[in-house]
C-alpha cells in the first residue's frame, strides 16, 4: 500500500497528497505534518519504532472543507481516490489521482464566494514585454489582455486580484505574487507561441484565433497556459471554456489600482463589502448578475454608443415598476448557471446540478418574453440567447424526476425516460410484478392458498408455507 502511495506522491510532486483509505483521506510524512499544523488535526503514526510513518487523516465526507483550508493557505492538494470497490479477494484496490486542487482552480461551491470571480492568472513575458490572461475556472470565462509593458501586466494583476498566478519567468514570480496578492505563484515553462496557438485553436474548435481578436503571441501563450493548467489539474477537457475574450484597456475607462482601493469601489479598508460603491448599486438577484455588475464597474466604457445603449435600458426599466417586478420574479428562480456548468465540465457536477440547470432554464422563456416587449435594444436583444437552450430544457425535464436527491444518490431518472433502466429499477426493488406472478403460479401449482413469497436480508427470497399446509409441498 505504501508503495502505491509513493508512486502517487511522485506524480503529485509538491502537492499535499490526500490518499483515500476506506472512509478517510490520509496524509503521510511531511504532508501529514503540514496538514496537522494548518488544520489542527492529530498527527499519529502508522507503524511503531524505526518504521514510524507520520500520518494524519480526515473523514472523506468532510474532506472538501479541509482541502479548501489548505488551498487557501497557498498549498495545492492532490486527491487520490480508490478506483475500484474494495471487496473480498482484492488485496489492493487501484488508486489514482483524480484531480489537483489549487487556489485558482478550486471550484467547490462551498469554498467559493458566490458573487466573486475565481481568477487564475497566467503571465507570459519575454524581453521586457508581458501579457496577462485570466481564467475563471468556476465559470469558464477566459480573458486575455494585449501585450504591454511589465508594469502594465503587474497593474492588471493588482486590479483583478487573482488567487493564483502562473508565470513563465522565475524572475517575475515574486513581483507578480506581490502585485496580485495571490496566495500562490508557480513558474512553468509555457508553450511557445505556435504550440499555444495550435492548442487553443484545437480546444476552441476554430481555424484561426483572429475571430476573437487574439493576435499577440504573448497573449496567446498566456491564454493557452491558463487553459492547459486547468485541464491538467482537473484532469478534464474543460469544455466550459468556449471562447477567449480580448480586453483592450484602452477601450475602457482604466481605473488605476490605487483608485479602485481609494474610492472603495469593491472593498472597504477593512476588506469588507459594506460601505462600498458596489454595495450601493448591487441589488442583483443572481450570483452571475452580481459578478457581472462588479465586472462592469471595474471596467466602465468609453464608447459613447455602448454607454447610451445601457442608459436606455436602465431608463426604461427605471420607469416601469411592474415590469421590473415581473423580471425580478423570473430571475429569482435562476441559479448560478455559469458555475453549475463549470462543475459539470470539470467532472464535479451531480444530478442536482442538472436539476438546477433545468429549474433555471425553465424561467428563461418567460424572462425573454418580458424583455422582448421592451423598446430598449439592449433588453430586446437578450431574448434570443435566453430562448436558445429550450431543447435542452425539454430534455432535462423528460430525464429528471421533479425532486432530484442531493449528492450522488441513485433514483434521479424519471420513470419512462429509459425503459431499460425502469426494468432494472423494478427488478432491483425486488421485482414486485415478477414476484406476484411467481406467487400466483406457485399457489396454483401447489394448491396452497396461504402461500406467500417473502424477503428478508438473511435468507433472501423464500416461500413461506404454514405448518398446516406442509403436506402439500412438492419435492422441488
Amino acid at each position, binding site marked *: 500500500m505504501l508503495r502505491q502511495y509513493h508512486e502517487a506522491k511522485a506524480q503529485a510532486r509538491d502537492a499535499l497528497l490526500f490518499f483515500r483509505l476506506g472512509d478517510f483521506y490520509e496524509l503521510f510524512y511531511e504532508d501529514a505534518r503540514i496538514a496537522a499544523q494548518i488544520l489542527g488535526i492529530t498527527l499519529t503514526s502508522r507503524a511503531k519504532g524505526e518504521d514510524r510513518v507520520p500520518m494524519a487523516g480526515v473523514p472523506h465526507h468532510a474532506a472538501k472543507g479541509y482541502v479548501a483550508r489548505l488551498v487557501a493557505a497557498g498549498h495545492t492538494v492532490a486527491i487520490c481516490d480508490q478506483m475500484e470497490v474494495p471487496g473480498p479477494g482484492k488485496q489492493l484496490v487501484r488508486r489514482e489521482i483524480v484531480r489537483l486542487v489549487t487556489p485558482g482552480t478550486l471550484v467547490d461551491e462551498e469554498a467559493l464566494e458566490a458573487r466573486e470571480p475565481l481568477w487564475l492568472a497566467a503571465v507570459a513575458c519575454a524581453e521586457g514585454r508581458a501579457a496577462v490572461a485570466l481564467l475563471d475556472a468556476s465559470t469558464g470565462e477566459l480573458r486575455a489582455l494585449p501585450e504591454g509593458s511589465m508594469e502594465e501586466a503587474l497593474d492588471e494583476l493588482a486590479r483583478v486580484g487573482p488567487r493564483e498566478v502562473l508565470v513563465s519567468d522565475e524572475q517575475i514570480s515574486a513581483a507578480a505574487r506581490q502585485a496580485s496578492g495571490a496566495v500562490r505563484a508557480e513558474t512553468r515553462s509555457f508553450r511557445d507561441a505556435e504550440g499555444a496557438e495550435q492548442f487553443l485553436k484545437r480546444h476552441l474548435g476554430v481555424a484561426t484565433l483572429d475571430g476573437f481578436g487574439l493576435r499577440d503571441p504573448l497573449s496567446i501563450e498566456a491564454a493557452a497556459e491558463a487553459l492547459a493548467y486547468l485541464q491538467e489539474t482537473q484532469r478534464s477537457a474543460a469544455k*466550459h471554456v468556449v471562447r477567449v475574450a480580448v480586453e483592450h484597456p*484602452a477601450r475602457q*475607462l*482604466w*481605473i*488605476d489600482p490605487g*483608485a479602485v482601493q*481609494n*474610492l472603495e469601489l469593491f472593498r472597504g479598508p477593512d476588506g469588507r463589502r459594506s*460601505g462600498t*460603491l458596489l*454595495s*450601493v448599486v448591487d*441589488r*442583483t*438577484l*443572481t450570483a452571475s*448578475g452580481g459578478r457581472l*455588475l462588479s465586472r*462592469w464597474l471595474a471596467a*466602465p*466604457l*468609453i464608447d*459613447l454608443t*455602448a454607454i*447610451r445603449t445601457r*442608459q436606455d435600458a*436602465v*431608463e426604461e*426599466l*427605471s420607469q416601469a*415598476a411592474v415590469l*421590473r417586478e415581473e423580471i*425580478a420574479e423570473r430571475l429569482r428562480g435562476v441559479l448560478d448557471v*455559469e458555475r453549475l*456548468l463549470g462543475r*459539470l*465540465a470539470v467532472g464535479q457536477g451531480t444530478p442536482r446540478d442538472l436539476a438546477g440547470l433545468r429549474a*433555471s432554464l425553465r424561467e428563461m422563456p418567460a*424572462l425573454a418574453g418580458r*424583455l422582448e416587449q421592451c423598446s430598449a435594444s439592449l*433588453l430586446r436583444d437578450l431574448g434570443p440567447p435566453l430562448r436558445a*437552450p429550450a431543447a*435542452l430544457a425539454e430534455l*432535462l425535464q423528460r430525464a429528471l424526476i421533479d425532486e432530484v436527491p442531493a449528492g450522488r444518490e*441513485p*433514483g*434521479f431518472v424519471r420513470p419512462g*425516460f429509459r425503459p431499460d433502466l425502469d426494468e*432494472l429499477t423494478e*427488478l*432491483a426493488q425486488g*421485482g414486485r410484478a415478477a414476484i406476484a406472478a*411467481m406467487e400466483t403460479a406457485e399457489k396454483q401449482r401447489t394448491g396452497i392458498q396461504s402461500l406467500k*413469497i417473502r424477503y428478508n436480508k438473511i*435468507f433472501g427470497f423464500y*416461500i*413461506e*408455507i*404454514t405448518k398446516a399446509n406442509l403436506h402439500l409441498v412438492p419435492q422441488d
Partner: protein
Amino acid sequence: MGAERFVTAGLSDHEARVLSAEERRGALEQQIFDELRQAVLAQSAGLRACAEAAAQADVLLSLAKVAADAGWVRPIVDDGDAIEIAGGRHPVVERALAQSGDGPFVPNDVELDAQRRLIVLTGPNMAGKSTAMRQVALIAVLAQTGSFVPAARARVGVVDRLFTRVGAADDLARGQSTFMVEMAECARILHQATPRSLLILDEVGRGTSTFDGLALAWAIAEHLHDQVGARTLFATHYHELCDLAREKVRAVNLTMAVTEVEGRVVFLRKIVPGAASRSYGIQVARLAGLPESVLRRGREILANLEAQELDEAGRPALAAGRGKRRAQLGLFDAPAAAEFAPAKPAAIEDALRALDLSRTTPMDALLWLHEQQKKLR
C-alpha cells in the same frame, strides 16, 4: 402460528437477478448522468450566452432599481471635455447618513471644463474635501458604466483614465518609505495621465516636512496644469497653493465653506468659490480636545508665522520669542540646496559631477533638479 420456509430454483434465480440488477441499475444511472452531462456540455456556448443574458438583465434591473429608489438621474455622457455636476452626492456617504439618521447629505456642484482644468480645493481637515472630490470620481465611474448617478444633473465628458492619490493620515508616522510610495504614485500619475483623464489628488506632499511638501505639491499641480492638462481636483491644506490658481489661467480656487459660531468651527460641507484664508487647524484641534495651553501657544506661533511668513532663505521666523534655536519643521533634515549646487549657471556638468549620490535623498535630488532647471530657464 408456525410456518416453514422453502426456496425454489426459480426463486434463487430471481434473487441473483435482483442483486445484480441493483449494481447494473447504479451503473446505468451513472451512464445516463454522463450522457446528460455530455448533452449539456455540448451546448456550453449557448448555455453560457443564455446565462450571460440573464446576468445582464439582472444587472440592468439592479441599476434601474437603484435609480428609481434613490432618485438618481441619467447623466449626459459625451465626448466633450467637461465634467459638470449639479447637486452631486456621494452615494455611499449619503446612504450611510440616511441609515443613521444623521441629517441629509449636503449636495455639491462641481464644474471642470476647458477653462477650468485644475480645481484647488482648500479647507480644513474634516470639512469634507475628500468626500466632495471622491463623489466626482464615483459619478464618472457610474456614468460610464451606464448607470444613473446621484445628482440633480450631470454631464460627463468621457474619461479615459482615473487616478487618485490620497495621502494617508499616518504617512508621517510611517516615515520616509511611505513618502517614497507617495512620490512613486505621483510620478506614475504624471506619466500616465492624458488630457482626457480625471485625477483626484488629496493632500499630496503630506508625507514629508511642510516645506518639502508644499514645494512638491506646488510643482506637481503646476505640471498637471501646464503639461498634462488632465481634469484635476487637487485638495490641500496648504492654503499657499491658492496663489497658484491666481497665477494660472485654467486653475480655480474652491473651498469648503466653514463658519465660526462663538469661536467654534462649523463645517457646512458646501463647496464655494474662493480660497480658505486659514486652515482652522487650531479650531479643529480644539474639537479634538487638545489642552487649552497648547492651543494658546499654537495661536501665538501661528500669529508669528502669518506676520512674517518666510524669510529669503525659506526659513520661518517660527522661533521668535524662543531664543536662537533654529526651528526644525521637517522630521528629517534636508540640506539647503546651496550646499551642493554650485551657483555658476553654465557649470551644470560640474554640479552633476560634484553631487554625491550616496548621500543624497530622493527629496534632495528632486530639489536639486528643480534648482538647476530654474537656473537654466
